[in-house]
């Protein structure tokens, strides 16, 4: 009976839950799903992390290369994010060139990178206008069940914290790079932004960490990125409107999640260092 109702009138079905301030998966309206994080599980990558937010699973693998910095910004390295949604992650994703969702997510991460929200790109520079690190950060979603951006940002930050690169120095006289592959270094300048996604329904109800189904039914989505107690990025791609009071409430909720994620990343990174 319940499944019939769900297939025939998904929105009505969902609203009966919302009226009772609960959700079909048993969560409260502003409750997040359980998150797990594992860093350094892929040996072939220079840095890696696997994040699970509920069912949504994202793997981030970082491969580093050396290149000359851009002429306009000679003291900056590069972080090149790329979000891939292979067709194995959901039955809704068609194989072929990257779809809208993947491109929008890539653009979102690129924006965080370009605004120095993730790390100061100048720390990736080895020799001004000669050599800098290029970090290819490939984010692979292997199970898509809503709140993709949250998982992507978390995976990226954890993988960057897990990143170990050979120490490379520039020799002026010989005009070449010297590296010692046995000595590795990490970057300690990585910031810790946390993205929280919320779904909005037209009667002013807000829910946090929506599943794929909830994202489809909702009238709008908002993603708030915070670092500690400050808001660093906000993203609201259209849909229904928000008032000031609601925004404040969302920021409050994001703050809670930020603390939880910071703890998880700390835990995962310290345990992966202990293993080395």
């Amino acid at each position: 009976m319940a499944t019939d109702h769900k297939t025939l009138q998904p929105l009505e079905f969902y609203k009966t839950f919302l009226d009772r301030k609960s959700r079909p998966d048993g969560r409260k309206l502003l409750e997040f799903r359980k998150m797990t994080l594992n860093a350094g599980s892929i040996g072939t990558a220079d840095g890696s992390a696997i994040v699970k937010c509920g069912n949504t699973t994202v793997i981030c693998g970082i491969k580093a290369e050396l290149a000359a910095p851009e002429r306009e910004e000679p003291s900056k390295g590069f972080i090149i994010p790329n979000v891939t949604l292979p067709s194995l992650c959901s039955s809704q994703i068609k194989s072929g060139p990257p779809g809208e969702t993947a491109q929008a997510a890539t653009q979102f991460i690129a924006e965080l990178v370009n605004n120095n929200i993730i790390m100061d790109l100048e720390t990736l520079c080895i020799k001004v206008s000669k050599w800098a690190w290029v970090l290819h950060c490939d984010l692979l979603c292997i199970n898509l069940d809503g709140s993709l951006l949250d998982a992507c940002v978390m995976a990226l930050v954890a993988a960057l914290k897990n990143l170990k690169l050979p120490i490379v120095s520039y020799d002026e006289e010989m005009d070449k790079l010297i590296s010692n592959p046995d000595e590795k270094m990490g970057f300690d300048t990585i910031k810790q932004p946390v993205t929280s996604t919320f779904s909005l329904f037209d009667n002013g109800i807000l829910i946090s960490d929506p599943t794929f189904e909830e994202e489809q039914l909702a009238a709008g989505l908002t993603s708030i990125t915070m670092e500690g107690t400050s808001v660093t990025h906000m993203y609201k791609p259209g849909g229904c409107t928000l008032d000031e009071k609601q925004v404040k409430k969302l920021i409050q909720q994001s703050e809670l999640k930020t603390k939880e994620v910071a703890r998880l990343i700390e835990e995962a990174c310290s345990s992966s260092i202990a293993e080395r």
Partner: protein
Amino acid sequence: MSGNELLSDQGLRIDGRKPNELRRIRCSLGIFSQADGSAYLEQGNTKVLAAVYGPHEIRGSKSKALHDKAFVNCQYSTATFSMGERKRRPRGDRKSTEMSTHLEETFAAAIRTELYPRSQIDIFVEVLQADGGNYTACVNAAMMALVDAGVPLKDTVVSCTASLVKDVPLVDVNHVERSGGSPELVVSILPHSGEIVYMSLTQRFHIDHLSKVLDTAIKGCKDIGAILNEIMKGHLTKLDTSLQAS
């Protein structure tokens, strides 16, 4: 050719295995909520994910529909960070397309496609970490995902590689052995009937050696088949008890 180093005087391989020793296999089933069937498989340091969708209606061009059996669609893809060098294209290059075609042909032989005319079965495999034997790991993972999805099979399919160094056949070749210039024979079999569904050989060796290398590969397949069978049974018993409990 570093044939001498690949097999030490004590008869041990570069990673310390005996010539007839497989790498450790770990596998878990039903790991995704979205897919109809899924599996994660580790063969040594090679790590592979597989997901199965279907049987469902034909997607895309309807001309692919076969009137008397299901159309098996496979996609082989390697993560950009899975190898030593960053891979530029995870799928769509010539090698991946070739692998996809091989997978399609292998599974078209094993799945009882005649039960689902005019429909499609999707098998997606993703190599997360590559350390030799990628194709075999993909076949084994995809087979486990098909079992998890409950797709009727004529027989399980298992795949294994074998090589020849200093006239000694080696089973389950890793990346170092493969790139060390030794030949690689890839075999996929249906273990119960013993039929070979796929076989390919790179590099040459004398035909006199073929039978013993092939025997090694088939033995490897059967050993892997036995391990996967145990994992499958374990998973199904767990499923059964949880069903009875609820």
